[in-house]
């Protein structure tokens, strides 16, 4: 009786009431947990307490006893309970114990590790000459994109598990001709330089983002500068770079064939990017304001592919995190404020900044080749959901 990350994500997208019983240690739960839309609630009940009194090897029975004595009122009946642990071993016993008490309970296959490493791949544009594929990492709220025209693919903002990109591009019978980071990322370890190396394609970045904004030290990785107005043709299509500083000083958005926009960290489906991760919120907010307005002045029918999401509820029914300039202007609070004057926008921005995650300084060092990390350290730095967007308005 298991449920995999794909099915859990599908439940989140459908906003089905789901109860997550996370049995990891309290510290692990506090550091990072699975988050879903409002219909999803979570409770931490460490298994180390459930099993502290176990006699012999009947773990489900011991768990059932513990639940009856301590959690009977806390775990709801009448909706699915998903038991969650680090790797899926313990949660299987927990789900079995819960079922013996009559709960509708399953175990998350592979635990939080499998959820954290899960990539959701889907085509959001699938035309004869052009496909756009969304590669999402739901646990982190990170979106990356692959545009394919003919046998040529461009990968935008790849994350560090490169095999996903190789698989997806190969399945389309294409090869990667360029890898672009829309900006130097601070919230996750980029796969950009490594993917470009693996396929012998150029790695492209705006030169302003090749200087660490806090350290003021230039990147030690090679990159090909991508600047305002530069066109990147592939197959029968073409990407055009727009320099849209604000979230970072070298932030790019990429227009595709005049119809689509890879927005990077500017406009998200339900929010806008924060301008303070370079440590200069007040200086960069006017740039951010001008950049957002520039993007919002693109043709209203332009389809927008953002760099992040904050909640799975932002996806459409098909799981795509896609919006349009028209919808952003009408329904995105941050975008609507950007269309107004600078002063109220700046006040709004400076009042909505979430806490600055200290590890973001180190992540950007990794991404610019100024530090090295083994996989474990990269995973530790990346723990939890990105906070590249402004906080939800109070």
């Amino acid at each position, binding site marked *: 009786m298991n449920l995999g990350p794909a099915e859990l994500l599908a439940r989140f997208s459908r906003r089905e009431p789901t109860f997550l019983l996370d049995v990891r*240690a309290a*510290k692990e739960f506090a550091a990072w947990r699975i988050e879903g839309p409002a219909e999803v609630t979570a409770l931490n009940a460490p*298994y*180390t307490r459930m099993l*502290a009194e*176990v*006699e012999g090897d009947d773990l489900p029975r011991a768990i059932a006893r513990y639940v009856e004595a301590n959690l009977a009122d806390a775990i709801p009946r009448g909706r699915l309970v998903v038991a969650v*642990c680090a*790797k899926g*071993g313990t949660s299987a016993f927990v789900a079995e114990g819960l079922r013996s008490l009559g709960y509708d309970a399953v175990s998350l296959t592979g635990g939080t590790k499998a959820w954290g490493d899960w990539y959701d791949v889907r085509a959001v544009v699938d035309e004869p000459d052009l496909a756009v594929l969304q590669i999402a990492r739901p646990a982190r709220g990170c979106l990356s994109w692959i545009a394919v025209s003919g046998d040529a693919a461009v990968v935008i903002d790849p994350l560090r598990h490169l095999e996903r990109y190789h698989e997806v591009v190969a399945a389309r019978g294409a090869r990667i001709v360029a890898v672009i980071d829309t900006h130097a990322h601070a919230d996750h370890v980029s796969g950009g330089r490594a993917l470009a190396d693996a396929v012998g394609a150029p790695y492209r970045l705006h030169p302003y983002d090749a200087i660490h904004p806090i350290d003021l030290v230039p990147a030690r990785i090679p990159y090909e500068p991508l600047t305002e107005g530069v066109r990147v043709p592939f197959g029968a299509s073409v990407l055009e770079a727009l320099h849209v500083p604000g979230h970072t000083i070298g932030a790019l958005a990429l227009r595709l064939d005049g119809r689509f926009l890879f927005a990077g960290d500017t406009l998200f489906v339900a929010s806008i990017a924060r301008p303070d991760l370079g440590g200069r919120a007040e200086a960069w907010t006017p740039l951010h304001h001008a950049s957002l307005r520039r993007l919002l002045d693109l043709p209203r029918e332009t389809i927008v592919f953002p760099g992040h999401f904050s909640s799975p509820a932002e996806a459409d029914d098909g799981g795509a995190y896609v919006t349009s300039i028209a919808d952003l202007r009408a329904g995105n609070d941050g975008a609507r404020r950007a269309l107004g004057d600078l002063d109220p926008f700046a006040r709004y921005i400076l009042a909505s900044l979430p806490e600055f995650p200290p590890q973001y300084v180190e992540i950007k060092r990794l991404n610019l080749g100024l530090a090295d990390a083994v996989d474990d350290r990269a995973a530790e730095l990346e723990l939890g959901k990105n906070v590249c967007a402004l906080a939800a308005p109070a």
Partner: protein
Amino acid sequence: MAEIQDDEVLDASGLSCPMPVVRAAQAMRGLAPGQVLRIVATDRGSLADIPAWAEDTGNELLDTRDEGGRLVFFVRKGSE
């Protein structure tokens, strides 16, 4: 560093979560308050779970060592 004297050793090598904690809880029952259980495990989940279990159950984690993938914990039984 001074070697910690143990009163009993639990070898939980090769066991995966939740068994290292289950065996540790069972082994601890045979000890008197103040005695020390040395737990050897290879499941890296133990790094979070053994300390959490020790804290929750009123026992004291004296030391944790990572000897090239072989994880060694010293836990002193509490007085409860």
